[in-house]
């Protein structure tokens, strides 16, 4: 296997045995990006000089025999809505096209402290609004398994960069499925942590009560290593949870004896591809053969999750994106008559169509006379959706479902019909609404395209999720497949 196709923990071991240096690894990653990214278009910017300087520093420390973190010296990428001081952070939007953050996100800072090597920032749906990365103002990322297809979204650039072995792992953000859906489409492991486990400081906000940062990796072990690096309480994020530090590597146990699995029946209904279902059921049967028990369970409000999500997410985004006014940072229109005209022209020229649509929907839902009918109602339904999960977790350790209704769809297939595009998140949005964690892990292929299995747990049950995901992975070999590029 080519060096770059290996996992982060494998190259960490090679580096520690001095079989490879961080500089060689980083150069190889940057060269590969130069060679294939014209085709995949996963990156919005790369920073070669900076990455190589950092890599040399890691090599020096390794030579000196210093003890370094698991991720030290390993090339990685960040989604372009995660702030990086001195490195452009655009949210794939024209309105932030020239923005260079004056500070780092907490996750950036934590990875830098662990001497991770940032090689570049990845493409995404503008402001993380979308499910295919086609809403980027700058380029359309391709799925490395089939370049006629989307990588998923909104963290499509991060997923494609890891799947095509341009970097060893990447961070994405997940508001309604934006880590798990692209992980599923690109054959990766993708984790949406419990709301509050990872700091959102420096993540450019889309919908603050739903957003979480998480890893996209080639296997479950890498997922645990990255989660170790980014999780933890942060005084800069008042919604970040206080709690004991957990070493997620300890969850890497291939054993599910006695585990109680709930099969959430609403996630296997209309619109879910038969081949996807077959793969997911096969994985569940396998877990049973390994000693787990399963039973069907109903989460009756699941069908209301998607409309609830679109009201809540749009309402929060209309408020969050009010800050883009052309005064303090970002794009400003060229000519204007007065202050209001400056705002209107700046925003109308700076935002793309889907972002405007969600700002409009949210403004409408929050406007006088409609607030109770839409926003408040959605918050009440949110309570019911959360209660469905609470009840299920009284009886089950985890719930299992498909991550996405279908494998990756074709570029352009859903761009004219927003509702069709929204439907691709039907299996992932309930998780964000309830704030629980969920992981997508590869469970097979349909006509050469990866399929993901989604494992959900109660708040802060990441260790349980990792253990079940690890068992699925270690009893199959899907995670060893790489796309031919």
């Amino acid at each position: 296997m080519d060096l770059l196709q290996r996992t982060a923990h494998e190259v960490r071991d090679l580096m520690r045995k001095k079989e490879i240096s961080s500089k060689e690894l980083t150069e190889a990653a940057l060269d590969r990006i130069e060679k294939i990214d014209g085709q995949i278009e996963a990156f919005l910017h790369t920073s070669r000089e900076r990455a190589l300087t950092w890599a040399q520093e890691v090599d020096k420390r390794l030579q000196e025999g210093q003890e370094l973190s698991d991720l030290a010296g390993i090339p990685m990428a960040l989604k372009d809505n995660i702030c990086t001081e001195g490195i452009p952070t655009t949210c794939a939007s024209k309105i932030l096209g020239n923005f260079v953050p004056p500070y780092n996100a907490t996750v950036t800072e934590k990875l830098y402290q662990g001497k991770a090597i940032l090689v570049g920032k990845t493409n995404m749906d503008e402001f993380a609004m979308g499910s295919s990365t086609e809403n980027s103002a700058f380029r359309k990322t391709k799925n490395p398994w089939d370049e006629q297809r989307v990588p998923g979204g909104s963290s499509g650039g991060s997923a494609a960069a890891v799947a095509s072995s341009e970097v060893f792992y990447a961070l994405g953000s997940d508001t309604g499925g934006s880590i798990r859906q692209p992980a599923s489409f690109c054959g990766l492991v993708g984790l949406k942590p419990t709301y509050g486990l990872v700091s959102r400081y420096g993540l450019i906000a889309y919908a603050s009560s739903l957003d979480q940062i998480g890893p996209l990796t080639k296997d479950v072990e890498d997922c645990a290593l990255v989660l170790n690096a980014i999780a933890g309480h942060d005084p800069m994020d008042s919604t970040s949870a206080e709690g004991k530090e957990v070493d997620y590597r300890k969850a890497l146990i291939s054993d599910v004896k006695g585990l109680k699995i709930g099969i959430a029946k609403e996630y296997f209904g209309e619109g879910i591809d038969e081949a996807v279902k077959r793969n997911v059921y096969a994985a569940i049967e396998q877990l049973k053969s390994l000693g787990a028990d399963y039973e069907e369970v109903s989460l009756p409000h699941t069908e209301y999750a998607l409309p609830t999500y679109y009201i809540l997410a749009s309402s929060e985004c209309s408020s969050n994106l009010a800050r883009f006014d052309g005064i303090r940072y970002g794009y400003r229109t060229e000519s204007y008559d007065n202050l209001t005209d400056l705002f209107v022209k700046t925003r109308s020229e700076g935002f793309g169509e889907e972002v405007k649509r969600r700002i409009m929907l949210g403004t409408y839902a929050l406007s006088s006379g409609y607030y109770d009918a839409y926003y408040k109602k959605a918050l009440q339904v949110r309570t019911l959706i959360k209660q469905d999960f609470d009840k299920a977790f009284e009886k089950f350790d985890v719930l299992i479902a498909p991550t996405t209704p279908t494998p990756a769809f074709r570029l352009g297939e859903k761009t004219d019909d927003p509702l069709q595009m929204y439907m691709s998140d039907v299996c992932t949005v309930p998780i964000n609404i309830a704030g629980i964690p969920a992981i997508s892990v590869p469970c097979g292929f349909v006509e050469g395209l990866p399929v993901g299995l989604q494992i959900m747990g109660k708040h802060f049950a990441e260790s349980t999720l990792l253990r079940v995901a690890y068992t699925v992975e270690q009893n199959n070999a899907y995670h060893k497949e790489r796309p031919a590029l």
Partner: protein
Amino acid sequence: MTISIKDVEQVANLARLSFTKQEKQDFAEKLTAIVGYIEKLNEVNVEGVEPTYHVLPLLNVLRKDEVQPSMEREKVLANAPDPQQGCFKVPKIME
């Protein structure tokens, strides 16, 4: 509910956005379809159900009242489209 061109204009004004005639038509159609879909929530009986604003039981998160350094002025202004004399310059707000 049908979203009319007039509704689009009103909401656009609140959101500080403007659209061409063609865009207004397109927004009216697509928003009508989306609002039609989200009205599915009318089927749910929510009488007596408390709204969930936030999923974690966090209340009144306060930091210690200690003085901390702020970001340097140059950094704050580095991205400004029109900084002047250490400030953000804005167009006249009163006639």
